[in-house]
């Protein structure tokens, strides 16, 4: 480089490092604040002494959460829906993607199905009609209401299909010539080669289930089946809207206690995402690029 030692360039580099890192930190600081609150004493929260590191470190808030049986019930519901939903959605996505990945000469009906899948991306019935269909199929207040309506994301099908299209055609061709049918080819040839994109889509599915809250709110009335995010919404956000109107000391203390235990709940809800985050980061980056930028 010509002007590496140019002072202006040096100042730019230093500033760039500084601001990039600052912006990076800004992205996690709000989360750190809540985690710090969850590990701090009620006293410290009450007097606003907690910034990004726990003050008077203790686990009192977690002791409060441990006694909240609804929290664990909801946690369990979310784990179940994520597992069931993952198995079901992944199967459906693969079954839809394989035929769509074939050439028109191999599968002449492909354009019809492309139009059929496209249709769902262009238009939707909206909130109430979808609710009525879920109700009509008898899914209200069952775990299936959280799994079936959102089972098939056309976006995931496209992602999977593009990956399959990218595999060398000679592989499936030779399988066909050896007398293998479509099922055998899919199971023995295509799927083993699709492991990276299966991983990406699995993460997409599990994450969507973990973060879903709206379906739990409108389709589920039974508290024993309320998923985690829906339950958290009902306690954390409804509480927060009245938080500022507190006038009496007791209310303020109650708020500080709630802040602490809510922080603990938020942390526990974030924990699984943090655990799979390294994988998420790796695969999402690949997935999104492959899905949006095509040759």
């Amino acid at each position, binding site marked *: 480089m010509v002007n590496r030692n140019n002072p202006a360039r040096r100042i730019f580099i230093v500033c760039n490092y500084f601001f990039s890192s600052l912006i990076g930190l800004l992205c996690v600081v709000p989360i750190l604040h809540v985690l710090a609150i969850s590990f701090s004493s009620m006293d410290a929260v009450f007097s606003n002494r907690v910034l990004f590191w726990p003050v008077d470190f203790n686990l009192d808030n977690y002791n409060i959460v441990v006694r909240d049986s609804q929290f664990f019930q909801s946690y369990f519901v979310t784990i179940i829906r994520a597992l069931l939903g993952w198995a079901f959605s992944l199967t459906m996505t693969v079954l839809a993607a394989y035929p769509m990945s074939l050439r028109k000469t191999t599968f002449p009906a492909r354009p019809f199905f492309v139009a059929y899948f496209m249709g769902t991306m262009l238009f939707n019935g909206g909130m109430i009609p979808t609710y*009525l269909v879920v109700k009509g199929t008898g899914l209200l207040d069952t775990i299936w209401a959280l799994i079936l309506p959102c089972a098939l994301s056309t976006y995931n099908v496209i992602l999977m299909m593009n990956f399959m299209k990218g595999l060398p055609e000679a592989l499936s061709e030779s399988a066909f010539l050896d007398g293998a049918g479509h099922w055998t080819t899919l199971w023995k040839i295509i799927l083993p080669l699709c492991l990276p994109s299966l991983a990406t889509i699995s993460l997409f599915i599990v994450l969507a289930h973990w973060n879903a809250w709206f379906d739990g709110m409108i389709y589920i009335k039974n508290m024993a089946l309320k998923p985690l995010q829906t339950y958290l919404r009902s306690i954390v956000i409804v509480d927060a809207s009245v938080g500022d109107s507190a006038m009496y000391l007791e209310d303020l203390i109650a708020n500080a206690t709630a802040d602490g235990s809510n922080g603990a709940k938020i942390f526990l809800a974030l924990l699984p995402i943090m655990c799979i985050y390294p994988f998420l980061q790796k695969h999402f980056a690949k997935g999104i690029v492959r899905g949006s930028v095509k040759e």
Partner: protein
Amino acid sequence: MTTQAPYLCPKTRILSRRRLKMDYPLYLMLAMPVLLLFVYNYVAMGGIVIAFQKYLPAKGITGSKWIGLKNFETLFTMPGFIRALSNTLTLSLWKIILGIVVPVGFTLMLNEIKSSGVKRVVQTLIYLPHFISWVLLASIFTKLLSGSGIVNQFIKLLGGTPIMFLGDNHWFPFTIIATYVWKEFGYGTIVYLAAISGVNEELYEAASIDGAGHFQQMLHVTLPTILPVIILMTALSVGNILNAGFDQVYNMYNNVVLESGDIIDTLVYRTGFDSGNFGLSTATGLFKSVVSCVLVIASYRIAYKTSGYHIF
């Protein structure tokens, strides 16, 4: 003679016996996905007839009274609708613009970082918010931005007066847009970083030999290479003009900021589930679906014309 080698006979009619015999496994595979979409997407699309009814849940679709376009008349004369429409447009346009400008700007900043360690750490930090649900983030932000929250403490420390970010119609749209950009800009950089990684190093060398400084290299080499991606992203975002982000707004708004924060989706929800007016709610949703459908088709066409982008 094996009939299961589809490559051997490409030119038969779709519904010919020979063809069906070869293709039936494919139809079998597609059966479940197609059925799922049929029930939860296409039947639901049929449900939009409710928009033309005075729908009563007890009577169902067949028993409810048909009232023609009454629901739409109510909708278009309702002051809440115009308000929701203009709020939706304001929020989504800002989100679209900043959702492109900020990631592109930050990508250019990241591109100037030569230490791959620092770069990776920064990337790890900025992608994180994308994976967290708006429920959790909304509860975190209501805490941070409340009157006694950490942001207002900071403002007081600097001598300012506290701002009700989520309880003031003047500030609410700003808060929504800012928190949205905070959550999504990092994730948005992925596509641009991928495009930049494809830049031929020789271009930089050539530019440098011709006397181009770093800034000029960025302007004349880096930016033109990611321009197609910027155009594609802009084109695709056209379809989202009526999506102001239900997940975010519903979890962050309250009755005080309906004036500046009520969007079409939240209006649909409240009309349907809080007021129980299924017909009017569906009509509102149908208005949005129809306009969105046109916009999405337009955006795909633009994306195809400008970038050769095709979905399937």
